[in-house]
């Protein structure tokens, strides 16, 4: 069995330990295993391919250098997620928007390319959320992390993650004009343009300031006030 074949049978923690012990190919194997997933996290967090490329490179370099800091209590993927998210946030906070966001026109659900347009709609709506809610939804709903894992990645309490997810989903539902009770479908009502330049006040401005006391889930079962 070749050395690389042997490494492919190592668990993630064993690969990190081997890397710390000087095994040259160990980190490469770790990179190969997790690069696609971390690329997805970076892209969904940054919302920009160039920025995501730089951030994920920063992240893997940081992981290479700080492998010895992994204490083995969480999964290696959780550890990597945290490094990638932090690298993305560093990049995002360094970059100030230089152009105004264009008016946002959400798609007609009857369009032939509805799935692509729906993805654009969703990404655009996500971009309007406060950072904490956007990160929580990205990790839990899009990346499939558990609330506990997401809490470890974001270094907040589980209740905070649940709260941010609840508020974020409610905000997204409002932005996308989703019918209550809809399950994964496209917006079922004709949508109106959303104009981010005409400020839409963050639904949870307090969220930007940091952890807040957990609140109950948002009640989305209220009667719609608008026309059906």
């Amino acid at each position, binding site marked *: 069995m070749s050395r690389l074949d042997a490494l492919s049978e190592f668990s993630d923690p*064993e690969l990190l330990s081997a890397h*710390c012990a000087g095994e*040259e190919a160990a980190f*490469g194997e770790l990179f190969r295993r997790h*690069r696609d997933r971390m*690329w997805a996290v970076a892209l969904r967090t940054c919302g920009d391919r160039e920025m995501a490329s730089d951030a994920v490179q920063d992240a893997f370099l940081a992981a290479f250098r700080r492998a010895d800091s992994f*204490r083995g209590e969480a999964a290696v993927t959780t550890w990597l997620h945290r490094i990638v998210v932090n690298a993305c946030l560093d990049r995002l906070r360094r970059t100030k928007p230089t152009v105004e966001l264009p008016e946002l026109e959400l798609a007609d659900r009857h369009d032939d390319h509805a799935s692509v347009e729906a993805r654009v709609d969703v990404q655009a709506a996500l971009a309007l959320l406060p950072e904490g809610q956007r990160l929580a939804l990205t990790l839990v709903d899009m990346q499939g992390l558990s609330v506990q894992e997401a809490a470890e990645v974001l270094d907040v309490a589980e209740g905070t993650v649940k709260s941010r997810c609840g508020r974020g989903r409610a905000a997204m539902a409002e932005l996308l004009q989703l019918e209550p009770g809809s399950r994964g*479908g496209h917006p079922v009502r004709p949508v109106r343009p959303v104009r981010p330049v005409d400020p839409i006040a963050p639904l949870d401005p307090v969220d930007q300031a940091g952890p807040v006391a957990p609140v109950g889930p948002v009640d989305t079962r209220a009667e719609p006030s608008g026309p059906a």
Partner: protein
Amino acid sequence: MTPLGAPSPDPEDDPTGVRALLSSLPDPGPMPTDLVERIQASLEQERVRRLASVDAAAAYDGADGAVADGTATGRLVARVGAEVASLVPGPHASRDRRGLRVLATVMGAAAAVVLVGVLGTRLIGLGSGSSSSATSGAAGSAAQMETNGSGAVRSPAAPSSGAVTRGTPSPDSGPLHKQPLSAQLMRLRVSTTRYTGAGLAAQAATLVDSAVAGLRPVALTAGTGSGLPLATAAGLRSCMDGLHAEASGGATVDIAYYDGAPAAVLVVAAGGRHTAYAVGRECSRSDPHLLHGATPLN
């Protein structure tokens, strides 16, 4: 309404449908090939940079088997080596990797030459005797020397009064004059074993068996790709010197965890007896980073 004391509703429940919508979005796809190559190149650059600093630390390896790494000498060399390595230009896609390795090796040798010059000057200044004794004793004496430059390197093994010992090896450098343990008697394992203080004796006993899974020979020199000195013969000897551990029958090191933190467990054999130690991964002659002292296994 949820009765008091009853389990809270399923946190995954999402009547808005947003979770299902988000999870149904198509995956962004694999990392682009050009980005894969770019990151691999930067990781390779990082590996070369680490090799350069480790090689510089090991470059000053005297004829008497003196180990540079871990001593004040080694740290000074490593610092010089690190400074030298930092002059290596940053990563560029078009950089010739082979040229970088050659450059790093040359710079490491240059660092060693600088070090000899610095130490020679200091020894002359201290009036430590003939040049031959100054040179051969430099490795030992350097462990006791206090530098007072901007990059002051103080050896913890120096007497507490701070006095500089002139040319006389300290007791701490005693193992330098013994026949070093052959690398063939050293074994390395990398595991995720979570050693504990209470369980060390039982856990480490498995390392006594030379047939235990995962054991392999240690790297002979730092230049063969190791980023951790403890994984090399020289580094392991340095660590055992710091522990004042007798290991005439061999030594096994397991890179693992102790009490939840990254660590290494050593099992040394001498006179038919085995003794275990738990140390930090930076264990060396000057500072063994002892976590758990000598524990007899048989």
